[in-house]
């Protein structure tokens, strides 16, 4: 299996006027293509920070990060965006849908920025909606949907561009157990189709879907468990 993610001594510091907080303190991880990895740890241990760095939303303060064999540590914002397109998809705990756009438009968004022609966009969006079973909600706005439905839309948006990796930050955190299980099943299905999943979670149940669990504590990897 090819290594799709490799970090070396990743450190991230947040500075305010008086305080300097090390959110990550020398993180070395390797993730293979097609893996399903869960990152676990208590609140404030740096899980989401690590996910943001891995997902190219943020830069590390120190260390190096190789994504798909490319060193992206010092990439500019625009370079990171270019690399993200079609390679990375995100699923957040709070869904992060755009309130002003309906379901169809929210899912279409990544394709729009990739410059895909309208016809092709329509095909892909309809396909993603069908897979997530939300076709009947295409014209609805996020606030008209239940939490589970919103998360399905978020997953549909994450997969519509057929990315290699999906980063999921507590994807079931805002959902009841039934909806939570449905979402995890969807992620599992995506993984079985070849998509790499990196998921941050508090939940042992969700982590049980992953093939490997990385434990983080005080910004450092404390354990790696293969399941």
């Amino acid at each position, binding site marked *: 299996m090819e290594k799709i993610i490799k970090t070396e001594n990743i450190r991230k510091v947040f500075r305010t006027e008086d305080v300097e907080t090390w959110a990550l303190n020398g993180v070395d991880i390797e993730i293979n293509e097609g893996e399903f990895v869960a990152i676990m740890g208590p609140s404030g241990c740096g899980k989401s920070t690590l996910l943001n760095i891995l997902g190219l*939303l943020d830069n590390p303060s120190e260390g190096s990060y190789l994504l798909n064999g490319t060193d992206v540590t010092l990439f500019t914002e625009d370079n990171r965006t270019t690399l993200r397109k079609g390679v990375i998809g995100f699923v957040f705990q709070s869904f992060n849908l*755009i309130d002003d756009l309906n379901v169809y438009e929210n899912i279409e968004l990544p394709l729009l920025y990739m410059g895909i022609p309208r016809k092709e966009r329509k095909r892909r969006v309809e396909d993603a909606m069908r897979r997530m079973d939300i076709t009947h909600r295409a014209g609805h706005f996020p606030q008209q949907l239940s939490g589970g439905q919103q998360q399905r839309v978020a997953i549909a948006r994450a997969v519509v561009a057929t990315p290699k990796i999906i980063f999921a930050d507590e994807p079931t955190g805002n959902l009841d157990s039934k909806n939570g299980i449905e979402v995890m099943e969807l992620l599992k299905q995506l993984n079985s189709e070849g998509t790499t999943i990196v998921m941050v979670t508090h939940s042992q149940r969700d982590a049980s879907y992953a093939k490997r669990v990385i434990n983080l504590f005080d910004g450092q990897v404390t354990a790696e468990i293969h399941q």
Partner: protein
Amino acid sequence: MLLHYMKMAVRQLLKYKFQTFVSMLCMGIGLTINGYIKLVLDAEFGGPRDEIRLYITDASQSAGEYGQLEEKRVEGIENLRAATVRPHQANAFVEGKPELPYEVNVFGMTPDLFRHSLSSSMERHFKIMAGRDSIGRNEVLVSNGLAKRIYGKESAIGKSITLVADAGGENDYTGCSYRIAGILNTGDDSEQYVYAPLVYNADVVKIFANIADGYTAKEVQHALNNAGLKTPDNGTPISFAVIEPNVMHVEEILAYIVVTIFSWLIFLIGFITFMKFMIQMFYTRQRELALRKCVGSKNKGLYMMLASEVTAMLACAFAVSCITSEVSFNYISYMHFGYLFSFSSLIVAQFETTLIAFAISLVVILFPIMRLRKVDMKGAMLRRRQGKKMKNAMLALQFAISITFLVLLGVVLLIAEYDIGWLPDKLSASEQRRIISLHTMKFGWDEIRSGIEKHPMVEEYVYCNNENRSSGSFSYHTCIVGNDTVYSGILAHGDPRYFEFFNISMEGKVVAPDEGNYVYVDRILYERLRQNPEFDGTVTLSFNSFGKYQIAGVVQEDIYAKERIAYVDHIGECPIVGFVFLVDSSYDTYYYRIKERYTTDEAKDAFETIMRKHVPESLDVRENIHTLYEEHMDRYKELYGLVNLMYMLVFVCLLVVVLSVYSSISLDAATRQKDIAIRKINGARSLDIIRHFIAPYLINYTVTFVVVYPFLGWLLLLRMLNGNGNRLTSTTEIMLYGVLIYLLTVGLLVLTTWGKIRAIMKVNPAEVVRRE
């Protein structure tokens, strides 16, 4: 509860400090300009409705005829009063100082002329600033400028002056002593006026009166025509026309409406920025409003909260308008508008408009509150979209107003260019500043002239007479060759060195000024005259009793093309063909070119010193020393004033529009961080974000421009300007001007919002997601 609402209002406004400041500034500017225009309109059109002007239709309208009318006491008219139309030039002398004459213009008036409002374009804005508004038998009113000049800070009331006719002539005021009864504020200190008791002579007068209660203008006219008045000289019956000057005619009503619309458009452009901010803020606070409803607030409470914010904002906007008025009032006074109204009346006018704005705002904020009653998610979403539509519509209206003002600026500039183009001058502004012109003076002119000519600062000089350089109006005469008669304009009479002095290319010989019977003609006239087989190099001019003149030279350039074209329109069948310059040795205007190493001020000082030796100290000599450039500016000062005013209005409009867009974008940036972050996470690059934020504004502007400009361009630039036959614009020019306006506004919008857009581009999505 009210305190809570006010506290919330202040807190809310402070939350978006910049946008609040912009909204208040735009509103304040709108209020100020609206106040000014409203007061100017009131001053111009707000005369008493019962005042009438009486015109004697088939006689000379002399003071003598007026005297008869006064004696007759015609039924239906009251407050009959009159003033002479033209002044007598005179010198005023102060008691005990016979060696110090003050040049004055003496008007005759009936005792109570200024006791009632006047529709005369000249005296209507004069106000009594000290003493009485009426005069007795040996009393006069003097202008403030004259009172200051003679008495300085000392009060002129009760002082005596003696009037002596100017230039050795005689008039009815010569030798009479008068006591100053009152001071008139004429709005311009250079005006040296004396209003003395009307003498019942042949002077032409303007007659004012009021219609008595229960009478109509028609009845008054009938009564006047049946009063049996006869002319004093040959006893023919006098008939009258009664005009109601303050009853507006169709053109005046239209002008009034158009200017009023403009004043409200200016206000509207500021008010829209204000309301846009209020509504935008309201739609970004749906969560807060919903929470308030959850904890028990009724719609009335929410309305009160919004009303408190509107009140706080408007109070601040009014304060801003007071400050801008305070700052601008001195400038307006300098432009001689100040005497039309007082500062306090300006503040009152602004306060009235603020109250209107307050009432409108209270109604407008009802709509979002009423819509809040439908509490469903889809409704909330649709409301938000409708909010955007409303914001876009408001913005489109602002754009449309700014485009209108830019087109109006174009109209004014075209008119100005057309009018100012009358100046037949090839000299640059800096060259014009180096030429000082003087007119013949009564005291010691030969000595003055000789002193100036010998002065080392003077490089060269030329004299002429009856010259149109500063007057801009041409007299015309016929040029006759054989049986061919054509019209020609008179350029000037004078010394033929005129052409060289003013850098006008001339082919021919420079004859001596006293050689007489020589003329110079321009090329176009010359070619026309040559077409006649009888042409022998001479021409007969109707000027000077059809004298015959030898053509000494031909002016090569068609420097009067515009004037010729204009005269074609003026005299139709007999168009002006060209211009002639008559050689003459009597002069009234003298031009002196100053050597380059001296400044104009130094030259003026030197000239003043020379003149001062020969002119009594009571007469102002500096006022008679002007550069060519100053004469030009003085002649067109109203047009330049209008151009400057339009520039100011356009500047204000663009400023408000740009600030409005900037404020909208910065509010978007502040309230749509999550939106930006999600878009970035999903692959939006910086360019996509820029497009997303600025494109709606540019599309809005483009659509508005495409809709509004062709209509305005056609209506104002093409139809109105070209309507009277003077072709000022073409379709291509209108299109080019449109492109210029479009690029200018778009450039301004992009430039001013660029900083904000860059800040939006740099939003770190990870940080926003973390905050969420």
